[in-house]
């Protein structure tokens, strides 16, 4: 509830400041805008971004064309956003990977190469097991992994991807070897969940929102939600904050961002437009349908979050030995 209130409050503040600043922040696109999504059609980033694009489109009356530039575990799409002309006609969905890719040596790209405009979604990880798994709680699982390192396997995304960090970081924070549960890379959450159900791996750690329908149908059990507060749609799943001494949490996030060097005028116009859209009933309904909360951050807060998240993820990656 508290988050909702603060969200609503900050949205209101933003809306006010948007009105106050209207004098300058009144740039609007005059032709089609390209909206780059670094991940494939059908995923969470894609769904959120298409929604944002269609709302911007209705607000400004020019097409916002979503382009899925997948590949290289996010490198291709993020490079396309960062390398675009900073004229406001190319924006995109920069995701948490902008802060992990450079640590694992995939690219030189960092959060400094983009201009964050708005936070779209926060997507915490989960710990999922099959319905007939012997592990009834996260503690069971961790105890077993501690005694039998390397016996269990887990999946969720590519090697060094965000859900891999979620698992390895949690093991590390709890004093286990980061590979006490071996990571099996996959091409995304859907094939990983398939492996989990088919008995190919013992654990999956994708976003809880991605495993939500399987949890509800009883095919998999959610042992933990890697967040401070429980998910409203699945209130029975305990958080890692409650369960673990280390209080480990990890969430991915999705932003709307432009390339670095976006003129202030354009950036603040986007910020104003997006905060207005995120305060609408339509957006709230959309988020609720996906079992997610409406989030909101000013550009300054978001930039600060990018900085701290970059450091924190860098430490995790260093600790679990994936840094290059």
């Amino acid at each position, binding site marked *: 509830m508290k988050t909702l209130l603060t969200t609503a409050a900050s949205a209101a503040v933003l809306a006010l400041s948007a009105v106050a600043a209207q004098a300058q922040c009144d740039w609007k696109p005059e032709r089609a805008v*390209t909206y*780059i999504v670094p991940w*494939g*059609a*059908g*995923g969470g980033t*894609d*769904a959120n971004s*298409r*929604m944002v*694009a*269609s709302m911007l*489109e209705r607000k400004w009356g020019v097409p916002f064309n*979503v*382009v*899925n*530039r*997948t*590949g*290289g*575990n996010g*490198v*291709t799409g993020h*490079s*396309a956003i960062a390398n675009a002309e900073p004229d406001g006609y190319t924006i995109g969905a920069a995701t948490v990977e902008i802060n992990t890719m450079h640590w*694992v040596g*995939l690219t030189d790209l960092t959060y400094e190469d983009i201009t964050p405009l708005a936070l779209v979604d926060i997507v915490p990880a989960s710990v999922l097991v099959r319905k007939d798994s012997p592990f009834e709680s996260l503690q069971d699982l961790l105890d077993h992994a501690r005694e039998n390192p390397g016996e269990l*396997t887990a*999946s969720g995304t*590519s*090697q*060094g991807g965000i859900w891999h960090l979620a698992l390895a970081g949690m093991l590390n924070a709890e004093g286990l070897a980061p590979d006490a549960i*071996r990571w*099996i*890379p*996959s*091409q995304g959450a*859907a*094939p990983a*969940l*398939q*492996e989990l*159900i*088919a*008995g*190919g*791996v013992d654990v999956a750690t994708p976003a809880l929102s991605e495993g*939500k*329908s*399987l949890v*509800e*149908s009883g*095919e998999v059990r959610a042992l933990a939600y890697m967040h401070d507060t429980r998910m409203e749609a699945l209130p029975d799943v305990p958080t890692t904050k409650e369960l673990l001494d280390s209080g480990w949490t990890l969430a991915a996030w999705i932003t709307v961002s432009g390339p670095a060097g976006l003129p202030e005028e354009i950036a603040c116009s986007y910020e104003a437009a997006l905060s207005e859209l995120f305060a609408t009933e339509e957006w709230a309904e*959309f988020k609720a*349908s*996906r079992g997610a909360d409406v989030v909101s951050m000013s550009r300054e807060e978001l930039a600060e979050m990018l900085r701290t998240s970059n450091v924190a993820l860098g430490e995790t990656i260093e600790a679990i030995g994936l840094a290059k």
Partner: protein
Amino acid sequence: MDIAAILAAVLAPKLVVTVVVCTFYGAFVGAMPGLTATMAVALLVPFTYFMDPAQAVAAIVATTTTAIFAGDISGALLRMPGTPASAAYVEDSYAMARGGRPRTALFVSLFAACIGGIIGVAILSAAAPQLARVAARFSSDEMFWLACLGLSCAVFVGGASVPRNFASLFIGLAIATVGIDVAVGHPRFTFGINDLLDGISFIPAMIGMFAVAELLRNAETRDPVRLGRLKVEGLGKAVAAGWREVRGRKINVARSGIAGTVIGSLPGAGADVAAWICYAISRRFSRTPERFGKGHTEGMIDGGAANNAALAGAWTPALVFGIPGDSVTAIAIGVLLMKGLTPGPQIFSTDALLVYTLFGSFFLANLVMLLSGTLAILAATFLLRAPRSVLMPSVLILSMLGAYAILGSTTAIWIVLALGLLGYLMSHAEIPIAPAILGIVLGQVVEDNFMVSMMKAQGDLSGFFARETAAFLGVATILIWGLLLVRAGLELAGRRPAASSRETNT
């Protein structure tokens, strides 16, 4: 479930109008090279927001159904498959169109697609939960063998001698190795180009190897017959001939409709894999396998029925478990969630009417497709009576823009150029194209699943036979490969004349 209630829901004017409009939209997008059924659905998503759930589902179903068929239109007329699902039998439909029967070829496709689609949805509505239970238990071990089995289809679809089929397959596999590898994330053969990290994109590759290669072959000859002005037969004659062909192959349609549905319901194996496998089966059991690839309708009927049936199959794991069978159903799941509906076993009880409306719209879409498909065929064949000096440049610009549309980068055009040249050289050396395309499609699936299995079993190869289903599939694959090796040996020893077909070269 009350039949009257379902009928009322399916035949509600709003739903029927949605289905009709979306079949036209699907026909248009599907016929555009480079624009896949997935893309058509992705472009549809913003509109579904204004629809009620049943209408949204019907829109997606109608769009994909026609888009998959319409992929045959540019395939037959320009040798440029509109969607990957049409690639398996493009040589046949193209050869037939060049032989003066373009409309017959397309009506064969249309009728096969319609019946295949109806078989698919009939099975879907009857057996969705059972099918999904089998499919959902497939791990990387089973997927690996399944993909290997898919690769052996290459040798049956190619139509040339064994060394040439294998050469083509390995060229395709070589192309598939480009990009980041799944195990450690090492970029392979990317030459520092970011756009290649995800591998060589399939659509530009296909456009290059089929359409641009054909353009190049055309450019080097002054022979006006090749891709010149198309001879088009009368509509009535084409419909009758098309229907006769399909009617005469009841067994093929039934077999591929069923097999296509089953393959489509396997997660990750979509309409394109279904078309390839059923084409290969068709060739295997045909009394005239030597006529495949040269304008023979048998394989077209099998492939065309299979890919539309697979669309219905792909909904099975999506509806029952919320695991998408392909990227279209992945988007569809997102749309359902947006509407507050969670796919899963309980959807059959909580939202039964929606599920049955979905089945109903599938039936309806397949029937309406007969109308919109006919109009699309008429429009397309009319346009293609244009002279060679207009048609060829049109193919060129469509190829380049179709590729660009998929990748959003000029790298796509360079891929088209390079693979167009490769396809041209291959056809000169009489190396078939089809197995290479299959290699590109399945190469990554084989490798990903192999690596995942190896990492799970920590390098123990016997892991591939540890699970019952996997062991069965594995033994089957190895037996088939053994037979192929024997055949290759016999051919080389000269005891069997090498069937070095000239493809559509002559």
